[in-house]
């Protein structure tokens, strides 16, 4: 199909990175949509875990929060939050952590804590929640966000979650044994870290996207792979699945009543 938005392309490209074998710790927002599109299309056996303790959940609509009741009702098991972080995450049982970000740098370090100085912030963001340990304990990390110069920056204001630090072997030097960020999916492109420097490099442009568009919306000088590819456009099945999911979600969240 050719009629799709950049956000839809981002979500669908992200969903394609997941398989039925994955055990995935799902961040709220864009990651949650991508993970559930994967589950509803090519990865029906994927295990989705939300930090509220719901393991193997299969919601019919996207949760507004990570603790919506439907996550529990459709889960294989629901465990207490300390158990979630100790046995399942810290225990090394989760293969992929899927995170969003307010700010990211070229090495996949994430800031969701503050814009400006921590003690006198210009904007106080929500903070890390589960992300600091998701970033270090999951086998690898996928990140998804929309490109903008204010969110893709040369230097982040606060290291909420550690990616590749200053690049190279920085993770190993800190004693972190997991791979860290291995995939960045934006509304314009797919990025992968350089095997040596760990700097995120564009490996695939979404249909209709130019190198200039990627550079204009990114705060650092972008590197492109020599064999740059074009991301296949969404299939009818992918797009229909995503739109149906969003529509069901919209209807469900309009429910309830104001206090």
């Amino acid at each position: 199909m050719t009629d799709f938005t950049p956000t839809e392309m981002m979500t669908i490209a992200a969903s394609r990175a997941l398989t039925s074998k994955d055990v995935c710790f799902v961040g709220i927002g864009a990651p949650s949509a991508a993970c559930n599109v994967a589950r509803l299309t090519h990865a029906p056996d994927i295990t989705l875990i939300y930090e509220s303790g719901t393991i193997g959940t299969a919601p019919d609509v996207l949760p507004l929060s990570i603790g919506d009741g439907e996550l529990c009702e459709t889960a294989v098991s629901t465990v207490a939050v300390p158990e979630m972080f100790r046995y399942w995450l810290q225990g090394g049982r989760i293969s992929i952590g899927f995170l969003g970000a307010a700010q990211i740098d070229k090495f996949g370090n994430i800031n969701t804590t503050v814009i400006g100085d921590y003690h006198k912030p210009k904007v106080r963001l929500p903070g890390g929640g589960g992300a600091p340990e998701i970033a270090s304990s999951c086998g690898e990390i996928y990140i998804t966000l929309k490109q903008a110069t204010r969110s893709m920056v040369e230097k982040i204001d606060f290291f909420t979650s550690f990616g590749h630090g200053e690049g190279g072997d920085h993770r190993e030097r800190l004693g972190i044994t997991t791979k860290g960020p291995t995939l960045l999916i934006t509304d314009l492109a797919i990025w992968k870290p350089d095997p040596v420097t760990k700097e995120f490099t564009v490996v695939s442009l979404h249909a209709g996207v130019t190198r200039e568009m990627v550079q204009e919306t990114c705060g650092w000088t972008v590197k492109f792979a020599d064999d740059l590819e074009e991301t296949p456009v969404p299939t009818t099945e992918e797009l229909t699945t995503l739109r149906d999911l969003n529509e069901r979600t919209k209807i469900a969240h309009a429910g309830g009543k104001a206090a």
Partner: protein
Amino acid sequence: MGKVIPLDQAVRENLKSGDTVAFEGFTHLIPHAAGHEVIRQGISDLTLVRMTPDIIYDQMIGMGLAKKVIFSYAGNPGVGLLRRMRDAIENGYPRTIETIEHSHAAMANAYEAGAAGLPCAIFRGYKGADLPKVNPDIKSVICPFTGEELAAIPAHRPDVTFIHAQKANEKGDVLIEGIVGVQKEAALAAKRVVVTVEEIVPDFKGLHPNLTVLPHWTVTAISVVKGGAHPSYTHGYYARDNAAYLEWDKVSADRDLFDQWMKDNVLSATPEVFAERIKGL
């Protein structure tokens, strides 16, 4: 031991100004009615402990009752930012607050350590993160067996923990089902435990044997408040009022609108109004 009393009495007898208090419930079962009662009684200078401060602490902070907040995610879940908490941090309004910021893993571990009677929690965390630079409570220990460096933080030992639950039986045993969060740990870590419940039933015969979370002798007081988690939800009773979370984003964005909302919906209300609020959910 688990005496059943009205909520205003339970709050008055158990929470004092200056206390360290946890209100827990991970999106599910957030004890909002108890929070409103604390606001009505004007109990202040509180150190508020909670993984996700959420609307419940946004209201207390906005009313100037908090001097310190220990937390790990200061968002309105699924909606955005906590605007009253932001106003306190960014502008010192209505008063300055001290913040002690952790990750979720750290907070969960700290409650568990408190419940286990340990002085600190030890876990593999904060690797490469900046929080240890701004939170002096985050330190490290070396494993004496492997040499691995691990994060260490103080255990949570609240003076009081407030939780909401589906039901208690006549003896005062408390049952929780669904997303159980960190309430058992937060309750067992505290000196006093106040539980609001949807209902009290004669006994738990016929129910799943693992559902009882707190035996009656671990609970200080129980108050029946139907709908007491609203706009959070109670699994099996009523759904999350997502529209109310969205509305809060607007109410909390404006100081005057907030004041008026608190007057209308909290200060001049009673716990009984929560039963009305969940109708149709």
